[in-house]
């Protein structure tokens, strides 16, 4: 495999890197208008998306494919321990990540045109996206963890990029500390796995051989593996905000600039789920050899134990997320908790570990990219219109801003899993898969569905505020302590040159277009999900077969 072909395989990633460098270059040259850097980023992302589509084999663009079809979804040669490997599910996730980046990049172009941090913002977005794409092709634990760092480090900085906002900075600080702790735990766990297997290749890890040997009494290290995986769960759970590793997320989504919140919740969070696929699906599927458990219980095997653990985490996460979302007063915190509970649903897919479940979880990720980014982007747009951070500040928006409110309502209904939205389809597939798996997984489906019913309560409450409450005469509730007048990236401050009001009554074309795209996707794929669902199901099937 020559260097050129290797690089060609990574054409989309290289494009993103080039785009990031170009953005920094343009910034250095002084062309730091947001239209310029934003366009570069958007175009880059779209190009990358095009190539990923080509690699996935979508007929209209298949001729652009850089990765030979024979290299996707096949087993690596015997004895080799590749660091990265192409799977169609990974490529699908790449498209999801790119879509999330695209939405945020496009919407952010409606921010004040002379904003200082624009170049850094877009550069970091592109770099983080690059990292996300790398996560999706990892086949080595360390590769995976460093790729996650490629995402994390820009994320910390993105949260802080407004520089002048104490809330953002506080969020960045929290994000950084918890993130760094998680990094430490992940690597520490990885070191144990390395110690047990002698390699960090995920194909090898997936085989569960180190555990299997342990049963025979020769050379296996069950405890090392088990403790290692436990540490990894703790480390990666930080990323997908499982309870109780979630506490940072609420503050960060709340404190971060709205566009960044959209990117974090809709985008970077999802790498954690794919990491879970990569790291834990193998043990779930293959570590089925029974051995005597610590403390004399058994014989049981690691796979089912892991399934139970993940199931417990999933149920706890969705329940706690939903319950906490119930009484939130701040819109972004409510969305943050809802995002946490959604992570619980997605985790069901890993816990079950069947192809249908994987399909459902992936689809849920896809849906969530749109729903959650979209929701945060609407919040950003609303902040730009002078709507305060509290849910109560949205009173009567349905009358003042019918289209924006309708889009937001659509997103919330989709989050709640109402029919004719993509959120419904994804939940339907996911919970169908849980019931299809039978056994105690049915109770996972029940828990998930009851939770989604509970979630209706707080989504409904927001709809109530938007549509049923009459508009407030004046902002009745003062902003919470430490909040800037409008906690958004578009906030006017000394750092930002005031600019003329945006088009569409302050919304801006780009942001309006983004929200429209989200709404259309939610509805169209809610009505006709076949074109997405069928290849995704096939990809999940391949992924399971590979045992990654």
């Amino acid at each position: 495999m020559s260097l050129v072909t290797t690089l060609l395989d990574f054409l989309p990633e290289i494009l993103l890197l080039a785009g990031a460098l170009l953005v920094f270059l343009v910034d250095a040259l002084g062309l730091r208008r947001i239209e310029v850097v934003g366009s570069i980023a958007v175009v880059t992302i779209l190009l990358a998306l095009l190539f990923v589509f080509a690699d996935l084999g979508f007929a209209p663009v298949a001729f652009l494919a850089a990765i030979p079809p024979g290299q996707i979804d096949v087993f690596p040669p015997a004895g080799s321990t590749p660091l990265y490997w192409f799977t169609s599910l990974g490529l699908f996730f790449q498209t999801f990540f790119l879509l999330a980046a695209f939405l945020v990049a496009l919407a952010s172009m409606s921010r004040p045109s002379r904003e200082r941090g624009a170049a850094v913002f877009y550069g970091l977005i592109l770099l983080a996206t690059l990292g996300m794409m790398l996560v999706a092709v990892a086949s080595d634990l360390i590769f995976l963890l460093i790729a996650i760092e490629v995402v994390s480090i820009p994320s910390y900085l993105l949260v802080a990029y407004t520089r002048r906002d104490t809330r953002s900075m506080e969020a960045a600080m929290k994000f950084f500390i918890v993130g760094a702790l998680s990094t430490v735990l992940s690597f520490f766990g990885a070191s144990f796995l390395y110690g047990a297997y002698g390699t960090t290749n995920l194909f090898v890890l997936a085989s569960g051989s180190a555990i299997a040997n342990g049963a025979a009494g020769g050379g296996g290290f069950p405890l090392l593996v088990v403790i290692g995986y436990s540490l990894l769960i703790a480390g990666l759970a930080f990323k997908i905000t499982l309870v109780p590793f979630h506490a940072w997320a609420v503050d960060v989504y709340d404190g971060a600039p709205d566009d960044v919140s959209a990117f974090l919740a809709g985008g970077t969070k999802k790498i954690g789920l794919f990491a879970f696929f990569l790291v834990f699906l193998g043990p779930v599927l293959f570590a089925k050899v029974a051995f005597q458990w610590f403390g004399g219980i058994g014989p049981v095997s690691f796979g089912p134990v892991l399934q139970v653990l993940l199931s417990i985490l999933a149920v706890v996460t969705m329940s706690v997320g939903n319950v906490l979302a119930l009484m939130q007063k701040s819109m972004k915190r409510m969305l943050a908790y809802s995002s946490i509970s959604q992570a619980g649903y997605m985790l069901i897919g890993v816990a079950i570990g069947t192809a249908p479940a994987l399909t459902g979880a992936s689809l849920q990720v896809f849906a969530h990219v749109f729903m959650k980014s979209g929701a945060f982007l609407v919040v950003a747009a609303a902040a730009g219109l002078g709507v305060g951070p509290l849910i109560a500040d949205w009173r009567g928006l349905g009358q003042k801003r019918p289209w924006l409110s309708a889009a937001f309502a659509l997103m919330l209904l989709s989050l709640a899993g109402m029919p004719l939205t993509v959120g419904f389809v994804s939940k339907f597939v996911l919970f169908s898969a849980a019931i299809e798996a039978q056994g105690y997984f049915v109770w996972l489906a029940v828990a998930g569905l009851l939770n989604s019913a509970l979630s209706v309560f707080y989504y409904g409450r927001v709809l109530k505020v938007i549509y049923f409450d009459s508009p407030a005469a004046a902002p009745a509730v003062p902003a919470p302590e430490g909040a800037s007048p409008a906690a958004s990236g578009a906030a006017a401050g000394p750092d930002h040159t005031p600019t003329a009001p945006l088009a569409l009554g302050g919304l801006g074309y780009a942001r309006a277009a983004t929200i429209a795209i989200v709404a259309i996707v939610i509805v169209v794929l809610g009505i006709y999900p076949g074109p997405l669902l069928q290849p995704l199901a096939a990809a999940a099937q391949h992924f399971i077969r590979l045992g990654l």
Partner: protein
Amino acid sequence: MNFWVSLDQWAFLVPLLPALAFVIIGALGERLSKLEHGGWLAVLFSAGSMVLGFLIAIGEMLGPGTYVDVRYTWFSIPPSSTGFRDGFSLVMGTLVDPISALMLIVVTLVGFVVMLYSIGYMHRDTGLPRYYAILSLFLTAMLGVVLADNLLMFFLFWELVGVCSYFLIGFYYAKPSAASAAKEAFIVTRVGDVLFLAGIFIYFAMYASADPSWAASGFLFTKGNAAFLPLGQGVNPTLLTIAGIFLLAGAAGKSAQFPLDAWLPDAMEGPTTVSALIHAATMVAAGVYLLVIGSLFLGFTSTDQLAIVAVGGFTTIWAASMACVHTDIKRVIAYSTVSQLGYMVLAVGAGFAMVGLFHLYTHAMFKALLFLAAGSVIHAVTTQDLFKMGGLRKKMRYTAFAFLAGAFALSGIPPFGGFWSKDDILSSVYSQLGTHPEYWPFYLMALATVFLTAYYIFRVYFLAFEGPSSREPGLSEHAHESPWVMRVPMLVLAGMAIVAGLLVFIPPFATLFNPTLTSPAFPVALPLNVPPSYPLVDIELSALSVALAVGGILVAWWLWGNGRLASMPRSAPARWMRETLLQRYYVKAAYDWIGGVGVYSIARASDFVDRFVIDGTVRGFERSFAGISQRMRKIQTGVVSDYAAYVITGLIAVFVIVLFVAPWLVSRLGGG
């Protein structure tokens, strides 16, 4: 097919004509003000109905074997592999047989004359289109009951009759007492109706299980076919008894028999015409008609018969006693109606259905007459209080004559109609006493009632028409005779009251009372010879009852006729007695308590449970979730060290789960 038989094909027109009147008057409403607000239309259509009804009845008298049943499928489930083997259907149809022919005569005749009378009597009221429309609808419904060829249709129109009664009692709805009386009437009869419905179900089940093809053919509730069913074959006698009791309950509700009798006196809140037509002649007789049908075609066991006799016999004296003290002219007549209905029920129960029917027929005539005459009086003096009337005979000759004719008929003085029928009942029941000694008390009650009847009706007569001009100045001085539209009906009915009993001696007419002789519709031998008492078989009994009646009249004359009693007796037992009777033995109060306090308290308590226990649980869920949420929010302290602590706690939890909890669970669940 001869003319008379082919006429029966058109029997459905008899109820349909008033229905047309209902539709037209209901649709046009006040636009008919030139036609007495639709009154003349109603008269016209009811006249048409009467003519057709009489023709059909005559056909039934003349034509041999004119049992004609015209059917229409109302509700049908075709045969299928399961469920009803042969399908299921409910039918509507008209059955013309001697009994329905007789009822046709009664209903259409009284209906027509009351319609005509209304023109004059109701002239001053408002809301007349409503009155005529509903009165027409009532005629339709009543004729539907009469012509029904199955129990379902019978019940359907029976209910409609009840609703019309409801609206007519509540005609003066702005009066709280009228609205209340209407409600009471509806609900009390409803109690009977639902039990009747239960009875229908039982008959259905019995017959359907005895012969499944019934369900398919739609003959299910057909009277004619019911008689084919050999009683005792595949029929559980207990079930039959219960069904009979339920039927009796239905009849008691409609015919105001004890203990469902309380509504009828209150129903006098309606216009007097309504009282005449509905609450004297027709609707209240429907209950008796139902028992007649039940007796002839559905079959009662001896237990049922005893129950019916008991209810009827007791009701005669129960109501008559209360009639003796009331001062409201209409109420007295209303109690009299209840009492007379008791006679009919008694007869049917004792096994003499046609005798009961005979009394129904004569009673319809003279009771309608009494009401119309009373209405004429009320119309003239604008009060219903007997003690405010007096000496009206001189001013209202026609009315007085009519009332007197009715009173003689009611008292059972020969040759007035009431004599023949009441005497028939008494002698019939007497004839059963040998085999059924348990009928004795009820026979005696009925006998005593003859005396009371004569007493109370002549009390009314003497108070209203005789004596000094008026005890209340200014009331009866301006009284004058009613217009011809009111006089003609009274005279027609007065004539009927005199001759109704004699008519049955005319052979063609008599056939109506003797269905076994002429109609193939009743191939099985009926359990009696109808009428048993023509010519009079037991002259001593007749003499006794006439003597009692005359005695009653004399006592009435002695007390009231010569002004001996200017007011009510004042002694303590008498006052107590009078108060008890006026309060209707406090049964009404008990009912009010059950409805107003008993049931309503249960409803209030249930409402409390619903709001605070059931819904409270739901709200408790909401609140507890909210509370948990509020409390859990506190863990989000904002201090990053705490967040790190959660992470480490989570890690340790993962350790615990992976090392201890999950393996244990997995081994319990049966391993990998």
